[in-house]
């Protein structure tokens, strides 16, 4: 497993390494010190495993295709936004708009998701271990949103 230290190389350094398909395809990565930064592991387009050791900011795993992304902590706004395929797994809670507009793949949130979970979803499967906030699956067109807890008012 390759280790990418975000504190050392920044978000751009982490994402550049993951986007280098000649090197990153079918590999496993561990991202240390995410420090709540935005857009970590966005736009991946190859089979690979990415494990993020802590809490992330906005849009983590956005536009994902094929990759398996494990977030060991809290995910900020728009986790797995517009995911096409692959998987994003959050071990903690997620902020609003988790899986927004996503076309495919699987988003798993072990804790609670906030408002607008799966807003305008277009084919993604989302499983939330806890509850979701208001306007979840608003404008949903296709896909499945499974909520193990409660859903707030629309």
């Amino acid at each position, binding site marked *: 497993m390759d280790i990418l230290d975000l504190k050392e190389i920044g978000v751009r350094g982490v994402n550049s390494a993951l986007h280098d398909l000649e090197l990153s395809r079918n590999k496993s990565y561990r991202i240390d010190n995410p420090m709540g930064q935005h857009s970590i592991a966005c736009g991946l387009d190859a089979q690979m495993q990415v494990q993020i050791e802590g809490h992330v*900011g906005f849009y983590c795993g956005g536009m994902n295709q094929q990759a398996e992304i494990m977030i060991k902590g809290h995910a900020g*706004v728009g986790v797995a936004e517009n995911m096409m395929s692959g998987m994003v797994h959050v071990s903690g809670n997620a902020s609003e708009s988790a899986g927004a507009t996503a076309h495919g793949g699987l988003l798993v949130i072990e804790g609670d998701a906030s408002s607008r979970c799966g807003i305008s979803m277009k084919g993604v499967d989302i499983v939330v271990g806890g509850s979701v906030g208001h306007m979840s699956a608003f404008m949903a067109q296709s896909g499945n949103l499974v909520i193990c807890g409660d859903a707030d008012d629309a």
Partner: protein
Amino acid sequence: MCGIVGLYLKNAELQSQLGSMFKPMLVEMSSRGPDSAGVAIYRNPVESSQIKFSLAHSNPGFLWETLGANLSASLNCEVFTSPVATHCIIITDAAETEVISWLETNYTEVRIVGSGKSIEIFKEVGPPEMVYEQFDLEKASGTHMIGHTRMATESAVTTAGSHPFATGADLCLVHNGSLSNHNLLRVKLEYEGITFQTENDTEVAAAYMTWKIRSGATLRQALEDGIKEIDGFYTFCIGTQDGFAVVRDPIACKHAVMAETDDWVAMATEFRAIAHLPGSDQAKIWEPEPSTIYIWGE
């Protein structure tokens, strides 16, 4: 935009580190609010017979000691002045209303930015890190702090339009968002005898809280009424003598995240502000719910 942050220390042993723990929180929110910044710090509570004022003047060379001597002679009271940059903390045993009317008569250009037993408010235009450093807050001890980094959308970039806004004794408010009924509400509050220093929407929210609390409401009641009467987008963080409160509008589209450990409670517009705190990796983290009032130290 705008960034707001709050930090409340549950573990008293950390109080000497409050200023250094809070600095990276505020600085991390610079990209959300590069225009101006402000903080409220709760520290060094005064005696029960005394009151503490946070005053500001646009001239950094303003002679605060002279003001203090004049105040002392006029009202026959004790006055202690602690100037820092464009601000000065004044502690006196005179009655609050007498001090306010004396300042309004004799020093019209001096602005009262806060008052109470322990609150001190500092705010200024400029990058947040520079503002924080000019008020010498990095080594500050205290129990809790709230702060704001401003990207102005509703009114001019001025020191007076910077947050926090005082809302009564030891109370102040910072805001991320924009209000839509502030002009109507301002007229209504002016009828109730509230005066305004700016055209700022947040000042109206602060004035609303001031009016409610002055009318006998508790902070919780004032916030509950505010949810009904204040229209617009907002995440508010309200500093109180013993802690802070967080409330979001019913739509809740202005970001907010909260985190708690055994040692502290923190709120911020984005988690990256909280990520600098020791123990944040093991903290309980969640997004505050809409129309829900969270209060620590009630």
